[in-house]
């Protein structure tokens, strides 16, 4: 039923990325474990069908002529990226000016949905590039063996050093509790837990910010994380399936604060001329999310894919990000950040677990979280 299906959509936005300790993220290189997917059950048939469709399509292309020689770059991304007001349309236009190609967005749910889809498709995928995985998904993505290394790199303006030969960061943000300015900000999680403040958070099992929060508490408190969650229980109004519901409920006054990003207030300032929102910097640091893109190993246009990844970290693309995706650009454009981004809360410390640590921590952290809150 309609209402029962909606879950898929609610989480998609705001993909976040992954944690790394304050010190440089060590990703890249190393182990590429081939994900244990067997050959696709319909592999052979699909090849035949593809050939058939190719011929049919070929006829159409001959008939229409003009498009016939334009190479197509298929980029899988999450849904919000390609919305009318997201970065997608502008980035597409800018890239197509330089590449003599046809960039086609294929938008599926959120980052986790994109990765699920890629895993289902395996080597038969049409994707050339995947854009919008976050650091929590990187380890799983790497393990599939579906991504190929690239030599694209840049002078990233990330609070952490980034070295990875496969996953190219294109934007990032800090998780933070967003609240109205007239609410007195707690200094850290303990103070928040001791207060009467009401918060709304996202579920880590269905939403990337939710998982980010879990990693945040884990990175900051380690073995004490369970106690923090137990203390926070009476502050949590509710747990939503995705960012959209949580933020919507917060705007409707259902809570004092909501788990979102330090960049969220910038939207209200820039788009709505409303400066009543702020975000809280916590003494233990704020957890980061880095969003990445990567080339798919089975792409039939590897050069074009590399060209796109390289384009992604140029000023042309990076200057589009802040006011469309409401995140920090991975490389600050020469023109600087838009007004409104300058006044944002600056966390004292950036927290991020490495992709491998985050992947290893996720399952036990979810169990710990569930047990602590289900009391």
């Amino acid at each position: 039923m309609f209402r029962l299906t909606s879950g898929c959509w609610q989480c998609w936005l705001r993909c976040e990325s992954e944690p790394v300790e304050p010190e440089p993220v060590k990703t890249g290189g190393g182990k590429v474990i081939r994900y244990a997917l067997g050959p696709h059950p319909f592999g052979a048939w699909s090849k035949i069908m593809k050939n058939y469709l190719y011929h049919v399509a070929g006829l159409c292309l001959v008939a229409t002529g003009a498009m016939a020689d334009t190479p197509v770059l298929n980029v899988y991304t999450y849904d919000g990226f390609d919305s009318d007001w997201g970065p997608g349309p502008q980035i597409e236009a800018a890239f197509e000016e330089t590449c003599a190609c046809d960039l086609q967005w294929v938008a599926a749910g959120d980052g986790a949905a994109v990765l699920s889809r890629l895993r289902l498709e395996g080597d038969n995928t049409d994707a050339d590039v995947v854009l919008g995985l976050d650091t929590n998904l990187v380890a799983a993505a790497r393990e599939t063996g579906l991504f190929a290394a690239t030599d694209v790199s840049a002078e990233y303006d990330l609070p952490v050093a980034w070295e990875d030969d496969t996953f190219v960061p294109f934007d990032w943000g800090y998780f933070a509790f967003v609240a109205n300015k007239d609410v007195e900000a707690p200094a850290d999680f303990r103070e928040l837990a001791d207060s009467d403040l009401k918060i709304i958070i996202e579920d880590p099992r269905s939403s990337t910010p939710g998982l980010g929060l879990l990693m945040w508490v884990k990175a900051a408190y380690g073995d004490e994380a369970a106690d923090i969650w137990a203390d926070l229980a009476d502050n949590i109004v509710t747990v939503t399936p995705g960012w959209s519901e949580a933020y919507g409920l917060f705007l409707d006054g259902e809570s004092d604060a909501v788990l979102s990003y330090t960049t969220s207030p910038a939207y209200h300032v820039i788009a709505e001329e409303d400066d009543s929102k702020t975000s809280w910097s916590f003494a233990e640091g704020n957890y980061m999310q880095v969003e990445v893109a990567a080339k798919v190993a089975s792409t039939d246009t590897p050069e074009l894919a590399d060209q796109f990844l390289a384009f992604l970290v140029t000023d042309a693309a990076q200057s589009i990000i802040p006011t469309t995706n409401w995140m920090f650009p991975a490389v600050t454009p020469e023109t600087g950040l838009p007004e409104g981004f300058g006044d944002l809360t600056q966390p004292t410390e950036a927290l991020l677990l490495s992709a491998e640590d985050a992947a290893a921590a996720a399952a036990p952290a979810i169990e710990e979280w569930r047990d602590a809150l289900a009391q």
Partner: protein
Amino acid sequence: MNLPRWPGAAVVAVLLLLTLGTLAAVLWRADSFSGLGRADWAAVRFTVIQAFVSALLSVGFAIPVARALSRRRFIGRGLLITLLGAPFILPVIVAVFGLLAVFGRNGLLNEALQWLGLSKVSIYGFSGVVLAHVFFNLPLAVRMILQGWLAIPAERFRLAASLGAPVGVLLERPMLRAVLPGAFLSIFLICLTSFAVALTLGGGPKATTVELAIYQAVRLDFALDRAALLAAVQFGLTIVAATVSFWIALPEGFGSGLDREITRWDGQKAWQKIVDFGFITLAVLFLILPLMMVILRGVAGLSDLPSSVWPAIGRSLAVALTSTALCLLASLVLALRGGRAVNVASALPLAASSLVVGTGLFVLVQPWMNPAKAALPVTIVMNALMALPFALRVIEPAVNKAEADYARLSDMLGLKGWARVRIVILPRIRRPFGFGAGLAAALSMGDLGVIALFATEKQQTLPLLMYQLLGSYRNDAAAGAALVLLGLSLALFWLFDRGGRVDADA
């Protein structure tokens, strides 16, 4: 009726393919096998309990409301009955926001309490889940039970009145016994697959439903085996519930003829009238107030809507109309075939996990065509599938009645096969057919479908656009889109329902 048997068999086969077949496809793609964990079973337990309580309360509250509606006449009764159907066809998130505008921390209720100097109440938690489920399903229960009441011939009430016999024991109790199990079952099954409602209002991981566990299995862990197992548990629960319910009583149809008024000779005492209108008022407040809040919020957001709302509306209408046609065709074929197997097969979509169906369909479709191209067709098929149980429940009793009344005459005249359907059955079932069409159209209008995995290329439907707006801080515009969605859903429902009535002969 001399209809060929293959269309019915084909529809049942498609139903099984879409429900159990997709589950099998997911299982097939799984590359490891492990059982269900402790948390999974906790989710199963919570799911069953909340579904049970939600169904119990929905049905319990629906009984006095339906009785009041069946024996009182007042201006706007027809309109009220139509509006009462609105929550049922509302996209879940819209309804949740509407509910919170009334019952939330900042809602009307708490403002009133504060004004009275009382302390605020919080609905988050088990009570919130049940409240929302009652909100969604009370209208369905009222309709089904009201139908039962209106099906009691007026003469019996007259007879009971002339004998001074108690109407309750004589007429109402047997009717309720026939109707309630079906109503309870439907709502129980709907609540069984609840996801967003339970999570948003549940207040935390205590309120974990099976659907969320499936979500986690597919999306976070990519544990397709566990997702398939959980989905199988949902089907198992459905089959048990359906069997128990069929065993207690055969479900009645619901839907047609609700604007009929029956003259009653009982229940005319002043206190009974007060009680009846009290229940009607309560139901109106409970159901209509959140709707009003949706409308109020939406009106303000209409001007913020992006221009892409127009193509989205067009796409949504096209999807809704096509899936309605498909759903009605399938329902008609199944209703003509009849039988218990058909009933069980048609209950399966209620219990299907949309994520598992979507994933399974993806696995099945992907080798054959680009899933992005399949997004809209798949949405159409899925919407038709999800509306089928409801449409069938409306149409099947009507087909049975038409056959009971006119089978002999038709047989004697040699009206067989398609001619019989066209000349006799279809005109006889116009009203319920129209109602079923309205229901299916409205349901698929608000449905997001299972296209999460079927990446779309600029193919948003209206609900998807609404979620995109909500997902990019544009809450006002999202509220506007929700209002457009609500308006279109109700308009479609009204048009089809009306179309079935105009010029329909008794």
